[in-house]
């Protein structure tokens, strides 16, 4: 319970991936930059210059490559090591501005500013922008409002409308201006309103934020859902969504990737599966859980309709829940052997660990080996510690293989400027 009006700020990095790339590459300064998804597939981020060229989000790179290169567009693979480090730096800076912060995604955080009413929050927002820009080198926009949904919307205004200079404090606008902004904004800009709901709302004549905001919440609940009702209440300033400062433990853990090039043999698929299991099991142990079931999924490339198509996903329950990489790899390999069909060009493999429960909560059964379990547990702890110290994958199950030719394709990858001694940016002394 807050004594004053609740106030939330959403801080969002502008063109986050593209901005990270530009920060370290002066040659990219005024050039259009796009960042591509896994295996250099689709455009997932665009610099302002690339947006100005009309390059759409999500477009497959091969479709626009030729034309884009004529316009001097630089396309880069996703450099996750760089983005993750820069994202953590932004969060560190932001946590200096609030006692309560929710990291919503790699480039967005909600800050609780309730109780800061004595401050000029617009100026405070500018301070946030300037400090992130100066300390970390990334541009951000700030939306401030009484609810998360409104803060998202305010951030949208801050980003799209130059008049706000990157900070929009919704409650500071007069009633007329606010109404006008809401009337000029389509409903699909509202947090949680996706394509299907947008289409259904349009049929009922609800096309702008202002019309949705003034709709009867009860009526919305009857015709749509409680979720959309909550959105309408949030648009009217009633906070329904609390800040999630601690991420709830995951209900299941997935790991999957498309292959850099098609994979045919069982042994390669098994390596990929073992690799995914290893990553998933690491996450499982990090949250102090054990899995009760393993799912293995393989499929061919649906975008190559001329190839024979096959896809199969099988879930098996485990005799007893475990977080042991070796045990999980063994089970997954057995499942894979059952669903593998030779002679097909496999495009993607993945695993899912589910029925998670806190480690050690299970009951012993007739076939348990307590001493062996303790030794395995110690092995896993050592494995995680070594991998944390020496880099992911230093120590892995032999089944995960050594060559890893199935790893994803990232041909346009920039250096890990901030996380690898061998890849630091060069400063010329000349």
């Amino acid at each position, binding site marked *: 319970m807050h004594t004053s009006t609740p106030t939330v700020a959403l801080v969002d990095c502008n063109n986050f991936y593209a901005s990270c790339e530009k920060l370290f590459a002066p040659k990219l300064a005024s050039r259009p930059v796009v960042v591509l998804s896994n295996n250099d597939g689709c455009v997932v981020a665009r610099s302002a210059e690339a947006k100005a060229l009309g390059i759409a989000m999500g477009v497959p790179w091969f479709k626009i490559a030729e034309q884009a290169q004529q316009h001097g567009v630089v396309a880069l693979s996703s450099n996750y090591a760089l983005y993750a480090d820069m994202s953590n730096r932004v969060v560190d*800076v932001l946590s200096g501005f609030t006692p309560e912060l929710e990291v919503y995604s790699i480039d967005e955080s909600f800050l609780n500013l309730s109780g800061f009413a004595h401050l000029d929050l617009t100026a405070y927002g500018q301070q946030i922008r300037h400090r992130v820009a100066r300390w970390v080198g990334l541009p951000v926009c700030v939306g401030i409002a009484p609810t998360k949904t409104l803060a998202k919307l305010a951030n949208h205004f801050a980003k799209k409308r130059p008049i706000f200079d990157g900070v929009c404090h919704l409650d500071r606008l007069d009633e007329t201006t606010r109404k006008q902004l809401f009337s000029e904004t389509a409903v699909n800009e509202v947090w949680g309103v996706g394509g299907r709901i947008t289409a259904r709302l349009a049929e009922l004549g609800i096309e702008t934020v202002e019309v949705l905001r003034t709709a009867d919440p009860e009526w919305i609940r009857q015709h749509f859902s409680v979720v959309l009702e909550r959105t309408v209440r949030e648009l009217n300033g009633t906070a329904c969504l609390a800040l999630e400062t601690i991420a709830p433990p995951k209900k299941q853990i997935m790991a999957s990737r498309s292959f850099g090039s098609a994979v045919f043999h069982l042994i390669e698929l098994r390596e990929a599966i073992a690799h995914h299991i290893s990553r998933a099991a690491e996450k499982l142990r990090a949250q102090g859980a054990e899995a009760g079931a393993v799912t293995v999924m393989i499929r061919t490339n649906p975008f190559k309709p001329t190839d024979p198509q096959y896809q199969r996903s099988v879930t098996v329950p485990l005799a007893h829940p475990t977080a042991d990489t070796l045990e999980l790899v063994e089970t997954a390999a057995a499942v894979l052997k059952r669903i593998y069909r030779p002679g097909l060009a496999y495009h993607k493999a993945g695993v899912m660990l589910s029925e998670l429960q806190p480690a050690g909560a299970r009951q012993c059964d007739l076939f348990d080996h307590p001493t062996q379990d303790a030794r395995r547990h110690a092995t896993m702890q050592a494995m995680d510690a070594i991998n944390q110290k020496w880099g992911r994958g230093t120590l892995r199950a032999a089944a995960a293989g050594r060559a890893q030719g199935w790893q994803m394709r990232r041909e346009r990858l920039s250096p890990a400027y*901030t996380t690898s*001694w061998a890849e*630091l*940016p060069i*400063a010329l*002394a*000349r």
Partner: protein
Amino acid sequence: MTGQPLSSALLAQPDLPWAALDPPPVLIPLGMTPVSAGFPSPAEDYADRRLDINDYLVRNPVSTFFFTVRGNSMQDADIDDGDILVVDRSIEPAHGHIVVAFVNGERLVKRLHRQRNTVALLAANPAYPPLELRDGNALEIWGVVVGKFKRIPA
């Protein structure tokens, strides 16, 4: 290398490979170690954290980045080829600071000269002329150099 004295064999290979770099070690203060028997350590009350080079070189971790130096134009400022620079973006660049600057598509390390109306980037080596910045030169002071480090092959 039979028959060759060791010293000249070494000189013939000035570029010994560097040792693998370790991540910062986890240091455990002395007083945390449980001792079950024997005399108590007379130093126990003085237990302190062992020195960590990060504390010495890095003032503000979130705004600190590392760059590798290439070239010798800063040698009179004790910055040599191969040194790793500690660059802090949270420091306001001022006249006299050594800075990393982005100029015309290049990352440079220079001394910032900013007085009255002139802005220039100076080398610390007479062989390199100052770089005067006029309009049209895209200049961005990226960060201020606050330290450097290097390894010595051994």
